[in-house]
């Protein structure tokens, strides 16, 4: 607490409070499946004879997961708190770095037979780090005896990075963590709108791969136009050796890297106004039901009449038809699958938003009036929640983005209140 030092209080009396913080910590994380280290034994009845007695044997033909441990996180933190000019301005600033080792992951792969035929299914093989900054800025001012206000803004930024992980040779999926990249970021094809002219179709790269998503006729007008990243004339995620080809990082993950809020209180005489704005940035979500594999699952928001279900009007009306060549969405097809449901940035939505989360406007009946009543306090207010939202997609709640509507959405509510105390 630097402000307690005499050299500061004497030389800089405008500093009300100044504190420098530094910390280091190490913690373990154990929220892993219980008893992974335990074996399940089987019984072989009448297995072996000693003397004249037939005995049973216990054995296990699975891998004994004996040496798993907690992952450990080392945290480094430097912080600065201060208030200056009679607490008119203040701030709390934190910079942190965390290193997590021994992350529990599933491991696989081929093992030599000399290892006995059973292999670890999980290991403490991963590590990652996380860095960021958090700060809170405070400002309060009493303008005069009738009007005062308080503002408190927060901002947080955190970015993690996968340092080490057990790369399984299976198909790289859209959300598969990659070394050197943040956890949970999204990979997929890059799109460049729709095929809208016949010229674009000439020498258009053809889809590779299984019949599931390969089109025998190649792309048609109204299909999503993917970018052939490696220029081999074909669109494919990976080659036979799982070398990544046209699959690139297309966005952030679902978890925002940046979050911010502003809390504002205004007081004028007996009226008060309180607002909470909040928002996030550096996040994306897909308009698909399952964004972890190489194709998106049809939902109402990306496929009209999916599963013979309802057609959302704006999707249906904005789908490409020869009469509507400038439509936003690709042509509608009767078949499932195909070119237009691959994981790509076409179906990805920027998840950032800014929302007026709470607003309360109220009035406290002054004491001079109260004295004539049997009440000790009367307060009337009107409050609203989720009043204003600025986001990139009208039909998905950005706070809990889900294209499958399996969550109950946020409600806009208005509350009229009267508090009376005796």
């Amino acid at each position, binding site marked *: 607490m630097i402000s307690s030092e005499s050299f500061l209080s004497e030389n800089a009396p405008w500093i009300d409070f100044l504190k420098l913080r530094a910390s280091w910590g190490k913690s373990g994380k154990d929220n892993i499946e*219980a*008893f992974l280290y*335990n*074996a*399940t*034994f*089987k*019984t*072989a009845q*009448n*297995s*072996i*004879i*000693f*003397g*004249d*007695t*037939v*005995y*049973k*044997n*216990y*054995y*296990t033909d699975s*891998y*004994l997961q*004996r*040496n798993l441990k907690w992952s450990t996180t080392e945290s480094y933190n430097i912080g600065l708190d201060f208030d200056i000019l009679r607490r008119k301005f203040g701030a709390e600033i934190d910079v942190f770095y965390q290193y997590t080792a021994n992350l529990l992951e599933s491991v696989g792969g*081929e*093992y*030599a*037979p*000399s*290892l*006995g*035929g*059973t*292999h*670890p299914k999980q*290991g403490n*093989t991963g590590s990652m780090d996380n860095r960021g900054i958090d700060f809170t800025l405070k400002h309060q001012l009493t303008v005069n005896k009738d009007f005062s206000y308080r503002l408190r803004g927060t901002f947080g930024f955190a970015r993690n990075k996968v340092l080490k992980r057990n790369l399984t040779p299976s198909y790289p999926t859209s959300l598969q963590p990659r070394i050197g990249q943040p956890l949970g970021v999204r990979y997929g094809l890059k799109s460049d709108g729709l095929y809208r002219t016949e010229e674009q179709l000439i020498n258009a790269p053809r889809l590779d791969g299984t019949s599931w998503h390969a089109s025998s006729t190649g792309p048609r007008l109204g299909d999503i136009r993917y970018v052939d990243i490696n220029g081999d004339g074909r669109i494919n995620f990976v080659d036979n050796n799982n070398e990544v080809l046209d699959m690139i990082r297309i966005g952030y993950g679902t978890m925002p890297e940046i979050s911010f809020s502003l809390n504002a209180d205004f007081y004028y005489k007996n009226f008060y106004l309180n607002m909470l704005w909040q928002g996030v940035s550096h996040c994306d979500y897909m308009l698909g039901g399952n964004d972890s594999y190489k194709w998106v699952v049809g939902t109402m928001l990306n496929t009209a009449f999916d599963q013979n279900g309802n057609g959302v009007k704006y999707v249906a009306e904005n789908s490409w038809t020869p009469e509507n060549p400038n439509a936003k969405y690709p042509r509608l097809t009767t078949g499932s699958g195909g070119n237009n449901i691959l994981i790509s940035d076409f179906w990805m939505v920027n998840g950032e938003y800014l929302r007026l989360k709470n607003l309360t406007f109220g009035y406290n009946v002054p004491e001079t009036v109260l004295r004539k009543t049997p009440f000790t306090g009367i307060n009337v207010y009107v409050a609203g929640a989720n009043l204003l939202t600025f986001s990139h997609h009208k039909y998905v709640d950005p706070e809990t983005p889900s294209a499958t509507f399996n969550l109950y959405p946020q409600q806009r509510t208005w509350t009229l209140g009267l508090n009376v105390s005796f």
Partner: protein
Amino acid sequence: MNKTIKYIAAATAIVMATSSCNDVLDINDTSTFGDLAVWSSQDNADAYVTAAYKSFNDQSIVANRDKFYDNYSDIMKSPYWWIGTYNRALFEQSRFGKGNADLFDCWTAVYGRIKRTNAMLNDLERYGHKWGDEWYDIRRAEGRFCNAINYFYLARVYGGVVLRTDHSGGGGWLDDGAYEQDRNRARISEEATYEYILNELKDVAKVLPEKWPAAWTGRATKGMAYAFISRIALYAKNWELAVSAADECAKYYSLVPDYAKLFDVSSDQDNSKEIIFGIRFQKNVLTNGFDTDYRPFGDRSVYGNQVLANSQPTAELVDMYEFKDGTEFDWNTYSTNHADPYTDREPRFHATVLYNGAKWEGRTIETFEGGSDSFRSFSISEDADGHTVTGYYLRKYLQEGNSTFPTEGSYNTDIIIRYAEVLLNKAEALAQLNKLSDAMEPLNEVRRRVNLPARTFTAAMSLDDFMTILRKERCVELAGEGHRIWDLRRWRMAEGVINGKNVHGHKATRNGTSFEYTTVDADGGRQRIFLPHYYYLSLPSGEVSQNSLCVDNPGW
């Protein structure tokens, strides 16, 4: 008041002190049959520990008809193309190849056993101390004993092994692949492999008990460890060790008087002081299929059962058996002193071979044409179907009088190691130490049991002379017990005995009341193949491809 507070403080301090040592946070999983249950009692723990012995069942020649190794040698013959791969491995060069050790392939299976036993040893360290040091030490020694023999099973096929123990993994941990660095591990040399096995056995011999309580008889003992040392030291050419280990065995074991009863469970194995380690079976409960697999053809009409006669002694073996007075057998001269070639032969012949005229379960074996057990020439295209292709059937390990074998199975003990072998091991080791005179004694001890006259040492006798005698003695004493091919391999004689050769039979023809015997080719005109690189067979391809430090044997 003040006093009360002090008491409370003291009490709290005690509670905190005790609870901090308590295992309240070590919760056990009771939802599955797991560690808690297995280590809840000594009986349960022993049911886990003794599972290590199951690796011996994998190699049992009695319990596995595709592991009757004598069929891949000059002394026994399988008439089949489809039971095991004995004949295919002998005749077709393609059977042994890169990544394929054919009938000897055991790498993956044995390592499966090694891994389980290592895991058991690791668990034993974790849970097994609660019953005292002695209890713990003995069980640890049992596990190490079983794995030492497992490594021997590998070494005799492949040479140097990839050594994986309960402490050779990353950080001194169990070597089970938990650490990336354990996935690639180089083989140790053949020499180092045998040294490791013998050191392990010497170590556990110090700890293992001399004897188990009756209900646990058959678990590893000191004598058992020394017996295996005497065998394996021959592979390591550590002659002194083979001799000293055999001498240790002599403290606990001796030969039984009756050779034939030794292999018969209904005679209580002649109350066996000789069987050092055997795999036991029990009627109806834990049985093997030996009678079905090896009985002579004539038993088909007796039992209405498809007996297979899967192993048949060859002329090469039969001719090695002396007459009971110790004279050598010779087809050209036997008739001057003997009415037929077989009746007057030494007891081991009668205990090992069923021949034309042998008494068997109240009937007479008839291998002649038209007889109940008639001869059929070996042919690849036409199966012998239970007939003899050599003129002989195997008798050793058959249960004479076990009339319920078709439904209730066979239950003779499979002898893994017995004292007669230890004596012959000692004889061989002494000879290699150039103590030929001393070497005669254990050899003659084996001969004395069957009332054969002692061999005498002469000054003119060379090591080669002695080894010729010894090799023959091993053949006739241990025939049908799976030793021959391993002996040929360690003597580096397999090429000479197998390659380019074929085995023979004696075909009987009835001539009035007497029989004529003619020597016939029992290999259907084929020549056997054994190439120099067969001494070290090829590792499974998975080992070489997944273990980057592992190099396959040369020549493949």
